[in-house]
């Protein structure tokens, strides 16, 4: 398997690994603003199932997306043990509901593998690459693929 062309082979990249829908994922650390516990959200009318609602983040109104539901891995039933990862992407801030956050990984760009072209659905399209961590495989999330569906168009 070839290394992913998206990263420089020699670059050192830090990822935060997390679990969502029972699968292991990771996010580039530079996109993460903060990590907080789940708290109740205000649901939005006419939103996709994966958009749980909006939350008050120190005065900013940010949408919260259920990562597992967004990736088609089934809905998460949020409890106080669940975690919201606040990320910034394309000047938007949004929260991702995940099961748990595990650790920070430091890897070389060369260790990142390209996503094999299996099927083309949301769960694959939003994976930028794969990472082998010991015996397990972690999926690198492509945040721009996760933005809530373009409501500007729909509304």
């Amino acid at each position, binding site marked *: 398997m070839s290394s992913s062309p998206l990263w420089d082979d020699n670059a050192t990249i830090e990822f935060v690994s997390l679990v969502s829908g029972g699968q292991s994922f990771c996010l580039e650390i530079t996109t993460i603003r903060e990590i907080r516990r789940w708290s109740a959200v205000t649901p939005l009318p006419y*939103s996709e199932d994966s958009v749980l609602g909006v939350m008050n983040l120190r005065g900013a*109104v*940010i949408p919260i997306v259920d990562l597992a539901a967004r990736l088609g891995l089934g809905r998460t039933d949020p409890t106080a043990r669940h975690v919201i990862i606040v990320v910034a992407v394309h000047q938007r801030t949004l929260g991702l509901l995940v099961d748990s956050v595990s650790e920070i990984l430091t890897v070389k760009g060369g260790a990142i593998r390209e996503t094999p072209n299996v099927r083309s659905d949301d769960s694959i399209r939003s994976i930028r690459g794969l990472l082998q961590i010991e015996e397990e495989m972690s999926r690198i999330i492509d945040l721009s693929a996760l933005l809530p569906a373009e409501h500007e168009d729909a509304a």
Partner: protein
Amino acid sequence: MSDSLRDMFFAECEDLLEALSEGLAAMSDGTHDAETVNAIFRAVHSIKGAAGAFALEDIVSFAHQYETVLDLIRSGQLDPDAEVMRAILRSSDVLADLVDAAQNDRTDRPDAMAPLLEQLTRLADAAPAPIATQPPEPEAVFAPMAAMPLTLAPIVGAESRFRIRFRPERALFDNGHDPLRLLRALSALGELTVDCDLSAIPPLGSFDPEESFLAWDMTLTGDIAEGEIRGVFSFVDGLCTLSVEREDDEAPQSTVPNSPLPQPAATPPGEAETPLVNADPPPDPGGERQPVRAGGAAAANAGPARPTLRVDPERVDRLINTVGELIINQAVIGQKIAALGAEPNSEVMSDLDDYRHLARDIQEGVMAIRAQPVKPLFQRMGRIIREAAEAVGKEVVLETEGEMTEVDKTVVERLADPLTHMVRNAVDHGIEPAALRTERGKPAEGTVRLIAAHRSGHVHIAIADDGGGLDRERILGKAVEKGLVSPEAKLTESEIDNLLFLPGFSTASSITNLSGRGVGMDVVKTAITSLGGRVSISSRPGHGSTFSITLPLTLAVLDGMVVTVGDQTMVLPLYSILETIRPQARNVTPLGRGGHVLSIRGAYVPIVSLAHVLGLASEPFDPTRSIFVLIRADGSQPVALAVEAISDQRQVVIKSLEGNYGRIPGISAATILGDGKIALIVDTDTVVAIAAQTPAVQTIRDKEPDHEQLAALG
């Protein structure tokens, strides 16, 4: 040139154009004093000077001709009669257009430019020869400068001869200017002889290579105004010592009103290094002293002393956001302390009260930063009226009232379009042709009045004309013809007037190029509604019409009613609410499949369940367990919105959802409540529109209406 310099130039142009129209407005009112004319001249001149630096040829050449005429007025050689006034007013419009075109990188010229240029040239040529009208007053306010050696040469023809001494300071070089360029620019103006003064150069031992030791003595001959010479140096203003003197045998200078100059006078006396902008008048051969000509770059910025601060609007917005947080945070703390069981008159509660007051004060103060007087907006309307009146061949004047009324910047900006439209309408449809006016015993000149005032936490703006008033018969006829109302409908006068706001309504029987392009008053209404405002009409046949606009003071906070919908807390904007009703069961009647109407004082009002429209309800709608909020939606018909409970009425801070999420049908924004929870602010107009397009049955059965329908609602 870097973009930031360019931006600065255009920002400055905006100010200068504003000063220009302010001065012109004063002149139109009959103020012809030297200071007013000077201010106008300086504004045009500064624009020209700066435009030259950006190689904006159109602006420079136009401003030059404009300036020439203004200079003649300033020197009393041209009488600002009606024709001249019209020309210089129109010229200011063209100049503004040119600046606008340059800013948007367009090169097209305004249509009016060529004829105006011609007219300006004609005016300039027609001006009588200089006459000495005023005795010189050399002692005025000028800072004296060390006397300089003078060699006077006779002058040939109408050419003037200037002695220029230019000594750059170190800062001039630090800022990347090159004296050579300046000298070249000067030589382009006329015949230039340059003499470099090397006397200040120290011995090599103490020579500082970064210091400036050179000075230039120059003589410039040609048909030049002093302002042009100063214009060359306008970009190094303050970075050099500059003196420009005119050497003339005659004394045409004395025709220049020697008005006091604020700029030199304001120069702090202690600063020896400040550039000397005016030289001591040299004795001229005739033994007469001549006043030194004012104006030019150095004095260009001197206007009425009103120190202002230029701040990036984003910073202010950030501040407003933070203050919004402060208010919310104060509410949170208040709720928590109350929950802890503090007595209402306990110390902590009174401290909390102080906190609340302070927070409100800060909020008001911050909001005031964004507030702007409507004056520039009104001035723009003056221009629109001039253009519109010219286009339709009517005589119309603009009267303004309360132009210092301050409104949120965004409101001012977004009012420009609807106001333009209404003002044009007033000129085109409102004001009758002069002949008809005289017949009706009114002055031939029509008047459009723009009035702004603060009233009970709102801004009121009225556009009133003294024209013929609305022709209700024709409006009704047109509405019937277009199928907007049925022929049998009996409408009250005000209902007829409001037909104007219906989409696709335009009364102009012929489409003029002014108004009546199909975009009607409904666009105006939409624009004003989107600002959270209302517009209404009143009209008296034969006496004119008045359009009244009511706007919130700011777009950052909203007066709202806090309601419970489904199990969510939501906010309804107060401006759309007519009344709240707790109905008797007998007042609610089923209508059609799953629909209901509310009987109120003999009228039947459709009921819309907010929870169902927003897809928040899990059960069928039960009108008997609801409270109704009667709202006035976009159409004329009121609608009863069913909610579960009404809990409060308060000001809420508006938080946009569009930045991080996007638009949501039926929701205009969000706010944060005292408990830190988010409440959505309902967009009543779209809610009603969604409800109207969704069959009643469906609102109960399906959680969400068709996405296609939503898309259609935009």
